[in-house]
């Protein structure tokens, strides 16, 4: 999986565009990038999932963890441009209700 990071300085927010399969092999890399942003005081983070065709439960748990961390700091983790399988996976796991999705 590739992670592309785009930062918007005026709003102090970031976008992480993910590409590929997001599974347990990728959560360490994701966490390193994600926690790095949080440590730098960036708590509004959008995760782009348009080019992700599969998310396993470990990846979902990692996204939930990231969302909690952002919200604790007054921000949010927003999921955007979901691919069809990712949308269905979020629905079937009922996590679509937990996340902000745009």
């Amino acid at each position, binding site marked *: 999986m590739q992670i592309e990071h785009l930062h918007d300085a005026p709003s102090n927010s970031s976008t992480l565009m993910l590409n590929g399969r997001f599974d347990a092999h990728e959560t360490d890399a994701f966490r390193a990038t994600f926690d790095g942003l949080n440590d730098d005081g960036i708590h509004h983070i959008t995760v782009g999932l348009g080019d992700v*065709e*599969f998310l396993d*439960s470990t990846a979902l748990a990692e996204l939930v963890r990231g969302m909690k961390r952002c919200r604790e700091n007054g921000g949010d983790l927003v999921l955007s441009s979901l691919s069809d399988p990712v949308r*269905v996976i979020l629905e*079937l796991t009922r996590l679509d209700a937990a996340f902000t999705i745009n």
Partner: protein
Amino acid sequence: MTDIPLENYRQWASTPLTTRPIYSVVIPAYNEEWRIVPTIGAIATHMSSLGEPWEMIIADDGSTDSTVELVQELELANVQLLIAEQNGGKGSAVRRGMLRARGDIVLFADADQSTPIEQFTALKSLIDEGFDVVVGSRSAEGSDVANKSFLRQVFSRGLNLLVRVVFRIPVADTQCGFKMFTAEASETLFQRQVIDEFSFDLEVLYLAKKLGMKTAECPVEWFDAPGSKVDPFKVAIEFLQNLAVIRWNDVRGLYKSANHELPAKAPLAAEPTEKTKTSTAPTGS
């Protein structure tokens, strides 16, 4: 991006088939509460996007976790959930699923999406070319194996060599959990095969060769999924024992005819009648 695939999925998820499915996807599941729901989501979305009637069969294998309840709660209209009282081994679970399948083309796929369902079409094109059995292969030219440990590679090489030499089965990867069959081949093979454990794959390929079926290998992408419950050492020893068992079964004539009955297939939903189609007249208050 068009949302037609998503519409197809919604239709599939909510409305039971009234015509026989073209495709059946069988997923054996033993204590898969952690992995099964995302796998169902990915398979259901992709298979629905192909635009043909299809069904999913979850063959539980006596799971002691919440696998069965999770699948039931999804309330998907075209999922057959086969519940087993006891754990019988992957071979028994796959067999139960395959013998219930109603499609013209039947795939079995592991619950961990280690071979992504997107590879379905590549295997199917070989069935269309006239093959009876098409096995996903992590060794065939062009396959892409991510995260496979060195030890596992050594293991699979050794076992594959044995299979080729002792059994003369020209398949480099007998164990990949992604195999496709014509309905006829599937029923013939799974009615005969008797191994309930992980070596059933090998037995099925052995039988396919014995019965003169055309078998092809198709290179697939494969992700060594974490959370596998298989101990490779145990499997290797079991595999060797089963090589001998298959040979012995054949010598004593066990494979001459079916060893399992073909169960009755689930009936299709009735076509909506005129009465249910037209909205009922409002009743007076």
